[in-house]
């Protein structure tokens, strides 16, 4: 037996040493230089960080009744790659989910993706039903859905959320951050099969639930207001309407209704225009309800005394334009109280001449015209008032009776609330407080009040408004046992080009009891068949006021005296 050549042994040995050295070197690279990378890859495969969504808080009325709440729900999804029979699975999925089979099939056939939603926010029972079908590629994820247990009650004010749970209209949008809360985070360690390992779940950060919103709205008052508004719209063959019920002492809004309305639980099927809270977001020519502001300017500036008389003709021509009163009449002797109570356009234009452009414009500004009220509602209208230094004689005359300018219903309600509150403006409010998960209520800070009129002036205006209801155009707002103060309004609408058209907005805004006001109600009807505010809107005010008396326990108070007047009662 011959020994192998020494050279071959050496070569094999060198080869083995080199191979071993290579392995050691590679091990060194993997274990030392690239250890961090591979450790990270391992952790990435095994450990997953998940976001823990915070539960969206509730919206409650002033008595704690829920107007919006969050319920557990499920999202149904598909992995199109794993779907074996798109047609058959679509046939099984679509009917219980209320979807169209062709839409579901299209989703199941979505190319180049492993995830597509089939339906979101379905009830847990429905999700269990879908899971029981055990369809390949179909899965269920935990989710939440927003639910509005009171349906259309205060729907435009409360607003709605989108499919991702973010507020997109109303208070849901305005207070989205506070309601949504702060999401948390947790780390989950998974087994090789993708299941969480017991003891391997660690919550890094707890989700912080949102803060409940406690509104000033009274659900019962809101509901009844909506019922009366709907009935008034139907009875007057109107296009729609808005109502605001508020406390003049605090600015708290008890009810804010707009008709037509919608069901927020099915808002995707609603007419988009019905989602709008027109009581805040729309500006309209106020018409004769604005005569109260002109009268306020006249009294507060001292330009006109309550007992002063005017010779008021049936018509008046200014700069080629003829203005006239609703009812034809010869020249009559009227006081400011008569002019307000009988809603004389000609008379109030004569009053505005005495006041002058500057003082009238200043009074409009003092009442907040041309600016948002500060309620903070999304899309709030500011209204438009021509700058006082640009008014011609006809501009002064028209704005004196609320034409050629625009205000929102909320602004106009605030004007009457100011008069009812002894001349002090209080910012209207819809939210009373936010209540954290710990139950601690944080009141929404109230805006500083400011005086717009002296108490004496507001008392004189109240007398005139009470006279308007007793013997003037507002007699349909009378309530047995209570003295109501208020004013009618009838305003022509303008088209998109700004031209007047033969359609009207009828309104009545007032408060009661006249001497100790507890509630202000603005009732507005859009395009009623009977155009006059005293005929169409005053009865709506009356119905809501009667209900407010019961609901709020309003007691009668001593009547205010009637202002100086010259016209005889009708």
């Amino acid at each position, binding site marked *: 037996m011959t020994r192998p050549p020494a050279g071959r042994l050496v070569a094999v040995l060198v080869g083995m040493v080199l191979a071993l050295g290579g392995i050691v070197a590679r091990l060194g690279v993997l274990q030392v230089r690239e250890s961090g990378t591979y450790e990270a890859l391992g952790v990435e495969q095994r450990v997953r960080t998940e976001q823990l969504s915070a539960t969206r808080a509730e919206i409650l009325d002033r008595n704690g*009744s*829920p107007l919006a*709440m969050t*319920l*557990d729900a499920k999202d149904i999804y598909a992995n199109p790659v794993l779907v074996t029979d798109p047609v058959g699975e679509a046939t099984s999925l679509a009917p219980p989910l209320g979807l169209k089979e062709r839409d579901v099939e299209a989703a199941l056939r979505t190319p180049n993706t492993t995830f597509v939603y089939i339906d979101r926010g379905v009830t*847990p029972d429905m999700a269990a039903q879908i899971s029981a079908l055990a369809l390949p590629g179909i899965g269920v994820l935990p989710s939440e859905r927003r*639910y509005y*247990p*009171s*349906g259309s*009650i205060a729907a435009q004010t409360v607003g709605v959320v989108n499919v991702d749970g973010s507020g997109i209209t109303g208070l849901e949008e305005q207070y989205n951050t506070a309601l949504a809360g702060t999401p948390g985070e947790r780390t989950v360690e998974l087994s090789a099969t993708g299941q969480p390992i*017991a*003891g391997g779940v660690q919550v890094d950060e707890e989700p912080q639930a949102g803060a409940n919103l406690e509104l000033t709205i009274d*659900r*019962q008052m809101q*509901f*009844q207001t909506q*019922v009366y508004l709907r009935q008034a719209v139907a009875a007057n063959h109107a296009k729609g309407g808005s109502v605001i019920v508020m406390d003049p002492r605090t600015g708290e809004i008890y009810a804010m209704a707009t008709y037509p309305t919608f069901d927020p639980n099915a808002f995707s099927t609603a007419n988009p225009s019905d989602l709008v809270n027109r009581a805040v977001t729309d500006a309209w020519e106020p018409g004769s309800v604005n005569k109260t502001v002109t009268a306020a300017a006249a009294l507060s500036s001292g330009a006109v005394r309550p007992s002063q008389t005017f010779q008021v003709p049936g018509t008046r021509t200014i700069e080629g334009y003829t203005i006239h009163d609703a009812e034809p009449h010869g020249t009559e002797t009227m006081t400011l109280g008569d002019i307000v109570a009988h809603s004389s356009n000609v008379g109030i234009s004569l009053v505005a001449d005495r006041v002058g452009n500057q003082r009238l414009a200043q009074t409009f500004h003092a009442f907040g015209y041309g600016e948002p009220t500060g309620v903070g509602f999304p899309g709030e209208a500011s209204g438009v008032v021509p700058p006082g230094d640009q008014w011609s004689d006809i501009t002064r005359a028209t704005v004196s009776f609320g034409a050629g300018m625009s205000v929102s219903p909320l602004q106009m309600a605030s004007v009457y609330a100011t008069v009812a509150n002894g001349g002090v403006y209080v910012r209207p409010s819809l939210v009373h407080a936010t209540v954290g998960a710990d139950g601690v209520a944080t009141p929404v800070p109230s805006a500083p009040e400011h005086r717009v009129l002296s108490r004496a002036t507001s008392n004189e205006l109240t007398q005139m408004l009470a006279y308007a209801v007793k013997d003037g155009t507002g007699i349909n707002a009378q309530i*047995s*046992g*209570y003295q109501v103060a208020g004013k009618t309004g009838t305003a022509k609408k303008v088209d998109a080009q700004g031209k007047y058209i033969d359609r009207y907005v009828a309104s009545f805004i007032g408060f009661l009891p006249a001497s100790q006001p507890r509630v202000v109600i603005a009732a507005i009807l859009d395009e009623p068949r009977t155009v006059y505010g005293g005929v169409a809107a005053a009865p709506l005010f009356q119905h809501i006021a*009667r209900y407010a*008396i*019961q609901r709020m326990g309003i*007691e*009668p108070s001593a009547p205010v005296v009637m202002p100086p007047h010259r016209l005889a009662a009708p």
Partner: protein
Amino acid sequence: MVAVLAAVLIIGIASLSALFVQSSFSVDGLQTSLSTLQQQNTDLREQVAQASSPQRVMAWARARGMRMPDHVITLPLRSAPGGGA
């Protein structure tokens, strides 16, 4: 001696691990119970909200022949000389 010590250590570690896993399952079970109770609470709140909804109350009342009064007259009570109402 070393073998006994090693065996005790191994058994001890295994027991602790089992206890830890058992506790984890208990925690998971309690969390599931909590979640179920919270779900029941939400369901009950939803039912209360629906049941107390003014629409439902009015529909219920109408179905039983009730209706809102047409005219409400308020009669103020005058104070008696003695101070009572």
